[in-house]
């Protein structure tokens, strides 16, 4: 389908396709097997200028050129995800880590941190989740206690993408335990700060080329100027950040699904059984047709939401949740069907679709599970309905 992308957005697509072909496809199976993050590939993205596409020209980026940055981020994430959802996540999680600074950071914070993210000299990560705070972000227990010009952090963050690889962490911590979610605040913590260390490296089902790690804070003193926005704004920072980044997860899901469909369609055109190409069987044809249609619908929804954000719309939590839910469910279905079309070969590691199926699963879980997203959509709908009744 023709989305009438600008020439600049097409440039992003071409560049990502080039990186995928040259740097990702040859090593994706190995990185998956070895559960290994590749800084070299992230560097290739920096060399191409990809880390600046969602950051303003004021800080060295180029988001204005793409009419915002949401579409740019989606196009890049989708194209990279076609080749490897894990490597694409390292890219997208960098944006997730940068967003609190981009959206809520002070001028000084933006000037200090964003240029290094654009150049790729530094990577970012976003740290909200804890062992007892998953869907319920209000359950965060990591404390940040003010001490003169410093905050002292204590606690553990879990399953942090780019953990151990990033240099800049945006961390949600409790500054006022008596106020629950309203007692949360957002901070910037730099790698190497005394009292900040890395814990367990996760051994995951999929997206294994992305690093997922524990962050441990033990009397970690950070300058008070590293507070993002104000004390008590942590929950809002986290929610707005996730609303903004969810179309990126949708794009990741679409990319993974498209990659799987491409493999399945090609395989079906080559594989012969009963003396015929298997894509001559209607049973296979209908599966392929549904996969293609679902992907296109997910893409159309996701691009619409991204364009809405780029156009300056302020409220898009429902739409962003819809894109994420729909695209991730499509990705799970399409990758499962792709394995089916490849039959036993699809189940083997020699073919990339089993990895795509494993990679797809996470998109239904992180950045708010699909159950939570459906709650967001439903509560928005209920509010809209109530407003109409008045």
């Amino acid at each position, binding site marked *: 389908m023709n989305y009438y992308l600008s*020439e600049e957005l097409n440039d992003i697509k071409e*560049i990502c396709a080039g990186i995928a072909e040259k740097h990702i496809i040859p090593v994706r199976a190995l990185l998956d097997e070895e559960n290994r993050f590749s800084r070299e590939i992230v560097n290739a993205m920096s*060399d191409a*200028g990809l880390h600046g596409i969602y950051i303003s020209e004021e800080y060295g980026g180029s988001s204005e*050129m793409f009419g915002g940055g949401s579409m740019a981020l989606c196009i890049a994430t989708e194209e990279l995800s076609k080749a490897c959802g894990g490597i694409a996540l390292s890219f997208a999680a960098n944006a997730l880590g940068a967003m609190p600074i981009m959206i809520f950071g002070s001028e000084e914070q933006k000037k200090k941190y964003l240029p290094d993210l654009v150049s790729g000299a530094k990577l970012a990560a976003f740290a909200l989740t804890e062992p007892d705070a998953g869907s319920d972000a209000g359950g965060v227990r990591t404390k940040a206690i003010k001490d003169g010009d410093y905050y002292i952090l204590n606690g553990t963050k879990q399953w942090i993408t780019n953990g151990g690889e990033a240099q800049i962490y945006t961390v949600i911590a409790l500054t006022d335990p008596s106020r629950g979610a309203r007692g949360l605040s957002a901070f910037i913590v730099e790698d190497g700060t005394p009292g900040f260390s890395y814990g367990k490296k996760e051994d995951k089902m999929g997206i294994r080329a992305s690093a997922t790690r524990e962050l441990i804070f033990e009397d970690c003193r950070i300058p008070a100027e590293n507070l993002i926005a104000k004390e008590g704004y942590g929950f809002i920072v986290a929610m707005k950040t996730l609303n903004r980044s969810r179309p990126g997860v949708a794009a990741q899901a679409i990319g993974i699904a498209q990659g799987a469909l491409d493999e399945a369609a090609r395989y079906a055109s080559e594989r012969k059984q009963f003396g015929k190409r298997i894509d001559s069987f209607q049973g296979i044809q209908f599966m392929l047709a549904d996969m293609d249609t679902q992907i296109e619908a997910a893409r159309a929804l996701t691009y619409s939401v991204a364009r809405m954000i780029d156009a300056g719309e302020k409220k898009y939590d429902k739409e962003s949740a819809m894109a994420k839910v729909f695209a991730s469910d499509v990705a799970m279905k399409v990758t499962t069907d792709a394995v089916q079309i490849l039959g036993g070969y699809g189940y083997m590691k020699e073919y990339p679709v089993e990895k795509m199926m494993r990679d797809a699963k996470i998109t239904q879980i992180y950045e708010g599970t699909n159950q939570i997203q459906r709650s967001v959509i439903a509560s928005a709908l209920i509010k809209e309905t109530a407003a109409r009744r008045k």
Partner: protein
Amino acid sequence: MRIVVAVKQVPDTAEVRIDEERGTLIREGIPSILNPFDSYALEEALKWRDELGGTVIVVSMGPPQAEAVLREAVSMGADEAVLLSDRAFAGADTWATSHTLATAVEKMGNIDIVLTGKQAIDGDTAQTGPSIAASLDWPQITFVGNVRELSEKHIIAERYVEDGSEVIKSSLPVVVTILKDANIPRLPSLKGKMRARKIEIPVWGKDDLELPEGEVGLDGSPTRVVNIATPEIFTDGQIHHGEPEELAKLMADSLLGTEDS
């Protein structure tokens, strides 16, 4: 350092079809790409420019569409581009092509080094580089797989030849033809692509180069392709069945030409 890279637009296929009657390549309907070898020449130029400073100028002789490969080269990092295009250039053989390219290099002025690919995947002669050197009366180093040193004064380069390599030192200016072994070409960057879209590419014709009619195109070409044909492949194999001794004798006789003895 001012480096020129000569780049050629070629059809995107290893199997170029031939118009047997006209003795030319059939280019219609085949997408065009930057000659793959030229991307190594370009990377070598960019690498040394990044290290030593200076300017990389890409030049191509061809029809107006050849501008596309120049823009691609700019997207990878070339600083300037020049297209040599003129109806009068049509039908040039390797001599006329190189002479035209060499004249453009002279017009650019103060060039330290001209890089070309090893060969073009369509024409395949590998003559253009050496012939540019001849036309400019500069030294040349061909089939270079490794440029060891480059400075304002000299170059030290390793030629990969059939049974080893030769290390050659030459003064500048010099013409060097580059092999795939030399480097891994970089990918275009976003900035490069933006610049490539906007950059003005001057088009130089016969008059800009002050070349007389008889030195360009078909008229300036001392050679003519008289005939191009795909060699016939003989696959007249024979299959014999029998005992090993019998078959061995048959084969020996056939090899020794003693069948009838």
